[in-house]
């Protein structure tokens, strides 16, 4: 997931090692950061992401650093900071933990806004306090802590927002170069997203051709972290069902028209990416995408099952439970949710539920595909 390709870098840069916590919305923007730093001449191998979340990581590096009780994805961030500070063979020079204010989203322009969750944007301030309240651990370890606020949902602002922090790291860095790096970051991100969307389309086309079912995961991007989402979807995949994530669903015009064209023409929504019919106050990027994913699943015949993952004490997901479930279930699609996920994987109950889901999928998928297909217009581009 967090892979990187070496790229031609501009002139030599000081051999900086940059640590980035592999948490929260870094999961959906890592390619931007890799692209950006590489364009600034930082070698790919000098960009260090903390490892996936784990209980051991929290125990070893995060203990005693928490400042407040809140949702698990934020709470476990202390372990990531600690691992980057204390757990590296070669010390990092910079801990880079951007405060992501808004997010790039395929729904951007069709919804009210694309903000990050208030906890996502503020988490770095909160976690930092745990490393500075008694003594400044960063200073003590000779690590520069940089946490610029960045509106990734509004590319016009990004270079300006990042410039001060990046210039602190690379003195004398001109704005022009930051702008070039930001552009490179966006290019890397959209190339990556396009690749994954292409993959999802291939899966859907295969399902359509073969008449086979697949599963859509509706979750926040960081539920891809095995320590947060507990790889529930991998267990299902082991039963032979391809898995799609809502963040990487295909968005090609032909497919959008087939799925949402009727609703658009009826004037119910303004575009295929408009979710006002199910979620009028569409401010939050990840929430919006989950709702849109639910609509996508409801219309796509071969998605016969939706899995919803939510974390313990998530304030954002709570109000979406009913609309998401209703949107999916009223289409005749199977819906299962795993709520309140925290540090420990409830292995036993997950196993039983996964088996139950697989059982239903096995028994009902053909029927679900048939009924959903009957409701859709002819000319499915997936079959073309």
């Amino acid at each position, binding site marked *: 997931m967090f892979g990187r390709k070496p790229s031609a870098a501009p002139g030599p840069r000081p051999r900086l090692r940059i640590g980035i916590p592999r948490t929260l919305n870094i999961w959906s923007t890592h390619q931007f950061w890799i692209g950006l730093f590489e364009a600034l001449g930082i070698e790919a191998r000098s960009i260090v992401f903390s490892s996936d979340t784990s209980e051991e990581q929290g125990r070893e590096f995060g203990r005693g650093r928490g*400042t407040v009780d809140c949702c698990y994805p934020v709470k476990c961030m202390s372990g990531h900071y600690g691992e980057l500070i204390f757990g590296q063979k070669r010390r990092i020079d910079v801990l880079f933990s951007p405060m992501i204010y808004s997010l790039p989203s395929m729904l951007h322009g069709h919804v009210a806004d694309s903000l990050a969750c208030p906890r996502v944007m*503020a988490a770095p301030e909160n976690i930092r306090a745990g490393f500075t309240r008694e003594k400044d651990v960063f200073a003590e370890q000779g690590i520069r802590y940089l946490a610029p606020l960045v509106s990734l949902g509004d590319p016009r602002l990004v270079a300006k927002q990042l410039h001060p922090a990046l210039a602190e790291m690379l003195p004398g860095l001109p704005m022009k170069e930051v702008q070039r790096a930001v552009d490179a970051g966006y290019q890397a991100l959209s190339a990556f997203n396009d690749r994954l969307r292409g993959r999802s389309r291939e899966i859907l086309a295969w399902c359509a051709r073969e008449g086979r079912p697949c599963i859509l995961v509706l979750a926040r991007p960081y539920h891809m972290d095995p320590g947060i989402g507990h790889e529930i979807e991998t267990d299902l995949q082991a039963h032979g069902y391809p898995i799609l994530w809502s963040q990487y669903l295909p968005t090609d015009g032909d497919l959008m028209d087939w799925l949402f064209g009727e609703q658009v023409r009826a004037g119910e929504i303004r575009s295929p990416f408009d979710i006002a019919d199910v979620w009028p106050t569409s401010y939050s990027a990840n929430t919006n995408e989950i709702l849109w994913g639910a609509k996508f699943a409801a219309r796509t015949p071969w998605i016969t099952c939706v899995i919803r993952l939510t974390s313990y004490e998530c304030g954002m997901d709570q109000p979406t439970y009913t609309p998401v479930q209703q949107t999916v279930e009223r289409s005749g699609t199977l819906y299962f949710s795993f709520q309140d996920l925290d540090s420990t994987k409830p292995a036993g109950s997950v196993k039983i539920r996964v088996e139950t889901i697989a059982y239903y999928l096995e028994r009902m998928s053909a029927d679900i595909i048939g009924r959903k297909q009957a409701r859709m217009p002819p000319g499915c581009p997936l079959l073309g």
Partner: protein
Amino acid sequence: MNQTSPYRTYRPAPFTPEERGQVEILFGGLHWRAERLIKAVFENLGHRARILPTATREDLLAGRELADVGQCCPTSFTTGNLANFLRAEASRIGAEETARRYVYVTAGSCGACRFGQYHQSYELALRNVGLEAFRLFLVAQDRMDQGALAGGGLKVDMPLTLGILWAILCADALQSLEYQVRPYEVVPGETDRVVAACVDHLEQAFRNRPQRDGKWGSLAWHLGTGYFVEALREVYRRFEAIEVDRLRVRPVVKITGEFYLQTVEGEPNHNMHRWLEAEGAEVYPAAIAVWLDYWMRFYVQGFEDEVGVDRTARAKIAAVRALQRVFGWTYDRLRAALGGIPHALPDQYELRRLAAPYYHHRLSGGEGDMLVGKALWAHLNRRAHMICELSPYACMPNTMSIGAMAGVLGKHPDLLYAPLEIKGDAEVHALSRCQMILTEAKKRAQREYEEALERTGLTTERARALLEAHPEMRRATYRVPHAGAAGTAANLVLHLAARGRA
């Protein structure tokens, strides 16, 4: 897995102009003074309006049961509050009649946190009590002129918005005065009696507010008129009759926290204001105006990010800052009508500067950087001995700034800070936690008072004698200037000494 018609979000049926005067507009969620004046504004514009009763613990439980268990507690309180009211009405007059007779109007269409998603909880609760036909409308709190809500029965235009704004400012000024008087009143209960009469008087003034045509006509009138100043002058005259003893040493406790919890006075915040007063504190309440001022700053900050990117950004900043100045000027005018006693609005840019090392000003949701900023502002400027932060269970932004406060306390270990998680239950726990810190605040107030005596060479007896000689200083309307102490008694001693020297 039966398939049915696709899920669609709730859309309220229209509220038509013909229904105006028959339909009652329900609203609530602020402190009672502001609510009463806002009701009068609705009535002034030809509407019928009703204030929902202050939420109770039963409402909290209903909110959890009817919407989501894990939602932030203000959502639970307000959802349950509305649902319980409607349920009671439905059993009295029937569901259909309830849906016909009332509409609910609330702010809430913004931003990052649950505040922007309240509709979902309300909607779920309505479905769960079988009142899908009931009409509720969300009003964007950041737009002055939004036109008519669906159906045209309620126009969110300048006369309404400005009326509500002035109602809030007058209510804030009155509340601030009241809280600086009651702890020192010589005749117990007198302040409450006077405040009740003053709210009646102001309510009357808002109900009879002269109408001005057009957007700009209305704005010009509100800015230029002496109408509200005069109404507050009358409040001032009534307060003049209250005798106070400001030599009582009381710790000043500044209330901060999430908007709803810091604003309401009642069970949602364990009646914290009254409880603190009963425990011997002077409460520094959270003015709604501060939050409105913050909203303007928030826009300024958004435009600041665009400087160098958008050519109009500087002009937009200038425009909003001008608006902020007009807003501050208006509030100061109203404060002046009450003898300048109500607390001034803190400078938003100072709050931002103070919070900056700990909490970025652009982080949005809830009170943003203000919780950190206000705590530091009150502490460093000696405006309060202690901060009582009312933090809702499961609030997203609030948990983040409380976490950041750990950093603040690391640097300012002498800042007395009581963050209380408000869940609706666990009242004893919250209050005893607060009491522990209050005990320390009392000691500080006492120490500060003794130091003031020592510095001035006065004794309490001598100070009393000076007060006896100046009866005007024993009136509630006498303004004791801030002389560098947080406590009223200490400031009074310093003031007496300075007067003696003059």
